[in-house]
């Protein structure tokens, strides 16, 4: 590990079927990058011995909850951290189980990159389609397809090529600009951190070197200025009696002192007077910074409002077409007034119509079956009690996303993508 902190952050998610070796891959990344501590490794070795295994089972490093250890499966998103001298990484390790697909959506929602694992013996399976589609739906721009367990197919190049061309063929229907293929053996470490001696025919880099180098900075939207007001700071102390600061996180765009802004929904205009990060004044702010902005004039702004530019505004929508990923135990019920949480606003809504359900294995649109339950992805039309200041999800992950909350249970029952 390095003490340097002048490096960037990469958030990625991993998905695979139950036995694709996902936990082993993460264990391998942590182990070979020397991010595992001695006492953690000793604990894993002890558990492995108790289970009668010869080598340390690296998947035990990531399967944390009691139920998971007992059943040998991953049932919830787990977050893992490691760093190399070049970058810091946050892994959202998501279950591959059919009934836990909602967790992949959760893990992928904050990720810049997704790793898809394919078992070299089996090639593309239903879950491969499902996970790739979800990555595409979530707007992930970088995909790494790891063809794992190459050791079990004698490191055979033909087998690898067959799988990669099948994947290319399938992924042409998805919207993911950057797809990279790597043949690996997570169990033995081939092409994970160290280059493999068993696959001389592969000329690309290892998984870790790709993760260190992949450029995600240009994925951010620096064009459309969107500053959703999160909280209004009014100290009312002697030193700062007239201070009125608008606190929030820049969703997109670059904000500079002196910029002319429009407050929505009021439409009032004013210039940016000051921008603070903590107590320090800065000249400009950009995503994903949390800042406090003061304006030249007293304008009406409170939580849920937004600062934007006059010539580049979000849409004000009350009738919304969106994709939903359903996550609730109970099915979608057209009679329930679900609460929409969008940015910093919360508003009641009605789902007027289910347009179709997507078969996420074939991407086929099913207009006949409109029963929407856990793990289903559907296109719906909903109406909100007041307008949302929204953009297309493809253009803006923050202003284009929402969740639905069941008002009876307060549970989060769906993730929504505006398009």
């Amino acid at each position, binding site marked *: 590990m390095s003490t340097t902190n002048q490096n960037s952050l990469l958030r990625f998610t991993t998905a695979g079927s139950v036995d694709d070796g996902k936990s082993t891959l993460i264990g391998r990344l942590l182990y070979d990058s020397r991010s595992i501590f001695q006492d953690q490794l000793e604990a894993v070795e002890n558990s492995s011995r108790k289970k009668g295994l010869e080598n340390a089972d690296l998947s035990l490093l990531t399967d944390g909850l009691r139920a998971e250890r007992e059943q040998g499966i991953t049932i919830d998103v787990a977050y893992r951290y490691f760093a190399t001298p070049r970058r810091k990484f946050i892994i959202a390790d998501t279950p591959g189980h059919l009934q836990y697909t909602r967790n992949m959506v959760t893990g992928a929602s904050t990720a810049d990159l997704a790793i898809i694992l394919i078992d070299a013996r089996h090639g593309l399976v239903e879950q491969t389609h499902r996970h790739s589609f979800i990555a595409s739906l979530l707007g992930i721009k970088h995909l790494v397809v790891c063809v794992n367990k190459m050791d079990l197919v004698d490191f055979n190049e033909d087998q690898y090529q067959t799988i990669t061309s099948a994947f290319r063929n399938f992924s042409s229907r998805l919207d993911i600009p950057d797809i990279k293929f790597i043949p690996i053996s997570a169990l033995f470490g081939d092409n994970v951190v160290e280059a493999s001696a068993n696959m001389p025919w592969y000329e690309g880099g290892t998984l870790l070197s790709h993760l260190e180098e992949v450029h995600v900075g240009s994925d*951010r939207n620096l064009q459309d200025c969107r500053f959703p007001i999160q909280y209004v700071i009014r100290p009312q102390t002697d030193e700062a009696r007239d201070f009125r600061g608008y606190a929030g996180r820049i969703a997109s765009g670059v904000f500079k002192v002196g910029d002319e802004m429009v407050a929505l929904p009021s439409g009032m205009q004013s210039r940016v007077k000051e921008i603070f990060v903590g107590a320090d004044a800065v000249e400009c702010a950009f995503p994903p910074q*949390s800042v406090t902005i003061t304006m030249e004039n007293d304008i009406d702004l409170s939580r849920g409002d937004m600062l934007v530019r006059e010539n580049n505004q979000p849409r004000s929508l009350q009738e919304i077409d969106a994709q939903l990923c359903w996550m609730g135990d109970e099915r979608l019920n057209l009679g329930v007034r679900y609460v929409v949480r969008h940015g910093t606003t919360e508003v009641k809504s009605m789902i007027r119509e289910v347009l179709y359900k997507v078969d996420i294995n074939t991407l086929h649109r099913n207009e006949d079956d409109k029963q929407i339950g856990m793990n289903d992805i559907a296109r719906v039309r909903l109406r909100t009690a007041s307008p949302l200041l929204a953009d297309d999800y493809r253009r803006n992950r923050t202003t284009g996303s929402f969740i639905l909350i069941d008002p009876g249970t307060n549970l989060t029952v769906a993730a929504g993508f505006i398009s």
Partner: protein
Amino acid sequence: MTQDYQLDHLDELEAESIFVLREVAAQFERPAILFSGGKDSIVVTHLATKAFAPARIPMPLVHIDTGHNFPETIEFRDGLAERLGVQLVVGSVQATIDAGRVREETGAQASRNRLQTTTLLDTVEDGKYDACVGGARRDEEKARAKERFFSHRDDFGQWDPKHQRPELWNLFNGNHMPGEHFRVFPLNNWTELDIWNYITREQIALPSLYFAHDRKCVVRDGVILAHSEHLPHREGETPETMRVRFRTLGDLTITGAIASDADTLEKITAEVAATRITERGGRVDDKRSETSMEDRKKEGYF
């Protein structure tokens, strides 16, 4: 910060934590910061001053005092609350014991660690706190790797890890029924090394215990424990003076020290970067069983 509008990873973590803290202030009626006196809750408090500047932190600091705390921790806590002008609320484990709500553990492994949970839940109920902000991090322990930023607790204060609300993007659902509360973890994505790099960068004041000092200690089962009146001696144990520092601050009776000469933030950060043992490796409370943290968290532990 550079011309290409990139943040380094500490700035990005800071921005995320500040967002979470402001979301707490906006979504809850009576939030509080659970302040242990340890470095993580000190960093949370520091981030809160940034989140609400130039206003004061709009929530009290709540401390659960086991009665077995290091005196240095208590002194630091009082000084910080006064300097920031924040209200300090103290829940006392001794009072919980005196009221007969819990029974003191006996035996060689006795500690007040588990008893804190009852005092914590009582304090939450008395203060009607609907959100308690803590300094826990996902990298600390395997059961914590699955924590949400907004973590729901039922009206018994219990955590149900198999039925957590999915948490997407930066949309935190803090909606709850009366009597239920949330635990909120702004530092979820920080590692121990991030914390030390940040403390060094921001020059955040810490209790002296974190820095190498001479102290009377006993070595028990390979763990260096501070000699004190709360730690009953076992046969054959004689305290000796050692040069040590603490990596985490829990109770005197369970927090292991490490032999160290690191007496500045820079030296500590270098030591943390080179170490091969996790910081909770010295915590006797985690060694009780493979899932002892998960079990305590379900009951409502920090």
